[in-house]
């Protein structure tokens, strides 16, 4: 049953992706600017403009452009259906190559941030839920409201100023590795993993050190809503009949808490999944502050340059990952909540 469910979800996801591809293809062409102008900056004669327009393929009928993008025109090379996302109009590099460079940075950053945010938020949320209205609960309320409403950009800059410039315990915001450090061979694209695979613990430590501030900034911001969600769900779970029954049965407090936590985690995981998908593109400010060169920065650069192939590629990848995350969430739900069946 589970396999069937997964296949069905993947199939629906592919249809959604295809619809999105078509919609994005047309929508970005409604943007109020002509990407050709960026090419002809120094030389905007009519001939040069026409030449640049031809080079980009923008002189062709829009349906022909779509056919070229999808790769269904005979003799026109590979398109989306053959796995090609096209070539960036800004750099002339394959979009898939550029995304393959940027995506691992964002995934590594987000995964670390969500891991530590969970490690921090779940116990704090539980603590607050044990005695609603108590001092701990009030403190958590203030913190979660405060952290959840803060601009991560500002906190990132503040952390840089304090931890790097003033106290010198963090590295300069120069990316994942210092500029003079040789990167480990690219195997997975994830520097932390590649450094271990290459037997370079020094690089691993350096990368971990460089991730420290951006991850701390994200944890600070993300933990607000997660704590709030865990706390709310825990309060609800602790007040439910099955907890009352467990208490009456004389089960130890820690076991009762674990039962309640399991029930509370299901809706919390939904929030985390949504946040993760959102942050794939939304981590741009953190990436920018710490010069991380991730997917968010790539997306912004592409949008500002009206780089159609890159914009289409980024949206496609973010959507595909989000769909996978949501699928994973549904599966986790089934594990956490025995009432969920497929």
């Amino acid at each position, binding site marked *: 049953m589970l396999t069937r469910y997964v296949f069905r979800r993947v199939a629906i996801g592919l249809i959604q992706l295809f619809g999105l591809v078509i919609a994005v293809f047309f929508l970005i062409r409604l943007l*109020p*600017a*002509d*990407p*050709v*102008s*960026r*090419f*002809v*900056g*120094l*030389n*905007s004669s009519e*001939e*040069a*403009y*026409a*030449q*640049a327009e031809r*080079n*980009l393929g923008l002189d062709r009928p829009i349906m022909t452009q779509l056919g070229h993008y999808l790769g269904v025109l005979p003799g026109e090379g590979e398109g989306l259906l053959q796995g090609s996302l096209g070539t*960036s*109009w*800004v*750099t*002339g*590099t394959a979009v898939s190559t*550029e995304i393959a*460079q*940027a995506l691992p940075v964002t995934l590594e950053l987000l995964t670390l941030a969500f891991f530590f945010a969970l490690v921090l938020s779940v116990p704090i949320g539980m603590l607050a839920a044990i005695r609603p209205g108590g001092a701990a609960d009030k403190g958590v309320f203030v913190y979660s409201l405060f952290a959840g409403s803060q601009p991560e950009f500002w906190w990132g*800059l503040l952390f*840089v100023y304090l931890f*790097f*410039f003033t106290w010198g*315990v*963090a*590295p*300069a*915001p*120069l*990316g994942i590795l*210092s*500029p*003079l450090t040789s990167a480990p061979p690219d195997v997975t694209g994830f520097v932390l993993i590649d450094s271990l695979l290459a037997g370079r613990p*020094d690089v691993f*430590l*350096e990368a*971990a*050190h*460089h991730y*420290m501030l951006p991850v701390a900034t994200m944890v600070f911001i993300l933990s607000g809503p997660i704590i709030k969600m865990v706390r709310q769900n825990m309060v609800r779970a602790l007040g439910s009949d099955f907890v009352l029954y467990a208490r009456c049965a004389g089960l130890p407090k820690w076991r009762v808490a674990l039962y309640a936590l399991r029930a509370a985690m299901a809706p919390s995981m939904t929030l985390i999944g949504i946040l993760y998908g959102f942050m794939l593109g939304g981590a741009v400010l953190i990436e*920018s*502050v710490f*010069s991380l*060169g991730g997917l968010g*920065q*790539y997306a912004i*650069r592409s949008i*500002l340059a*009206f780089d159609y192939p890159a914009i289409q590629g980024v949206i496609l990848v973010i959507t595909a990952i989000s769909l996978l995350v949501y699928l994973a969430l549904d599966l986790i739900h089934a594990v956490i909540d025995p009432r969920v069946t497929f």
Partner: protein
Amino acid sequence: MNTLKLLAGASALALAGATALQAQEMLFLAEDVPAGLNYDGPAAAIPTSQTGMVNVMEPLFGYATNPPNESGVITPDFGTFEGRLVESWSYDADTLTWTLNLRQGVQGCDGATFNADDVVYTFARGKSVSGAAPIGWFLSNVASIANFTPAVFGEDAAAKEIGDEVLKVDDYTVTIRQSEPNALFLPVLTIFGLYMFDKELMDANATADDPWAHEYTNNVNVPSFGPYCVESWTKDDEIIFSANEDYYRGAPAIKRVVMKKVPQSSNRVVILRSGQAQLVQGLTPREFDSLRGADGISVGAVSGNENLFVHMNFDVPPFDNPLVRRAVAHSIPTQQIIDNAYFGQATAWKGHVPSSYPGYHESGTQYEYNPDGAKALLAEAGYPDGAGLDAYGEAFQLTYVSEKETTLGPIVNAISTAMREIGFPVTLNPIPQTQYGDRQLVKRDLPFAVNDQEKPIGVDAGYATQLFFVSPESGGLNNMVNYRNADMDAIWAKARVEPDTAMRDGMLAEIQDVLMNDVVWGPVVEYNTQWAFSDSVTGLQWHADNSVRFHDLSIE
């Protein structure tokens, strides 16, 4: 906390390794790294891409230098050309032909050796107009090199092939023929868009689908004869240059330069102040100002070719009325902008051409800030106290590039406040850079705007005239305000082919008087180009493309 200390220790070790190499290496922080190294490619218009090109490639000609200015920056002497890859040259006015005697023994990276084939290849590549943005062709056309005409964009394949206009005489002699006398020939050959390629390595990296190696130069390397070689390059992150020890003007003092992208200018400031970087660019005027006097930091500034002007479109009423244009020009609080937006690092602009350029002329017609004069002109135009201008509300949307909000925000606010007091119904309209570029360069429908990004890269008043002010019908290229003046076009047509410098300068002065009288642009300020760097860095030199040449620098 222990983990924190461990991580700090690991990083400190890495930094210690870096410090040990400090005398030989430089960390240069910029807003981006090269997106391409192909000047006929898609990234050619991006300043940081140009920085990559000029450090790896080499021109035929350059300029002599002036002594350092008061902030220690060396400036070019635009009146004196120097041969770079050309050792000596001569011009035959009868045949309009330049004979270039090339330097021998020039070596680039990866075994590249320079000779006449490279020169012919470079022009042939330009004429092929095979790249995304054919700048090589454009510059050759501007210099009146024969047969570099718009015909290359047609269907005739022969028109795209190099002929005897660029001819190899022997291994170290080349002749280049012009179609008409044109004083822009030498200035154009100093521009990055005609720097030399190494033919052999370019051919080695060409493919059947890409015979001019655009893919290679867009993404991997550009074989040439400059002072640096590309050691590694990760787009959107960093590029590392290592010295070309065989560079014919002497091996670079700095052996390795790491150019690193740090998007946030405030982070570039703190990293420079921490001592980890030696050179930064692209800060806001306020940030540069904050670094003046900081321990161990110098700020170099030069009044080069960067300026800010008010754009008024002749095709959009009421800017078709010269009285309204003059009223606007008198409404700009120039000194307030210099003091509050540029922190004193700017001067009032009194022309339409950078004042450092040969041929610049300061006209007798000037437009100082004069609110009463502006009101009088407005009344004379039929809009006393702005009455009736509300009908043109859309035309008075003051457009500017939203990405430059930090720098331009205070300026547009000062302008709009001053203009509203006079009676203009000004509102602000920030739009993205690409949209601005589209409306400015292609659609040419921006009614009213502030522009701080027009730097004529050809160092000559005539080049600026042809680029910005000549009507499209007469060969104008970026006439963004739709200015049409047949008399001025006629003067330029004569000046363009005038071989006598004094006569040409006289005509260019006449043109600049016309431009000021017609307020073609509303010139506001010439602002300084600035860099911040460690005290240990010396030799900084300004070049007209505003890209730093690492070969100029040394670390003490």
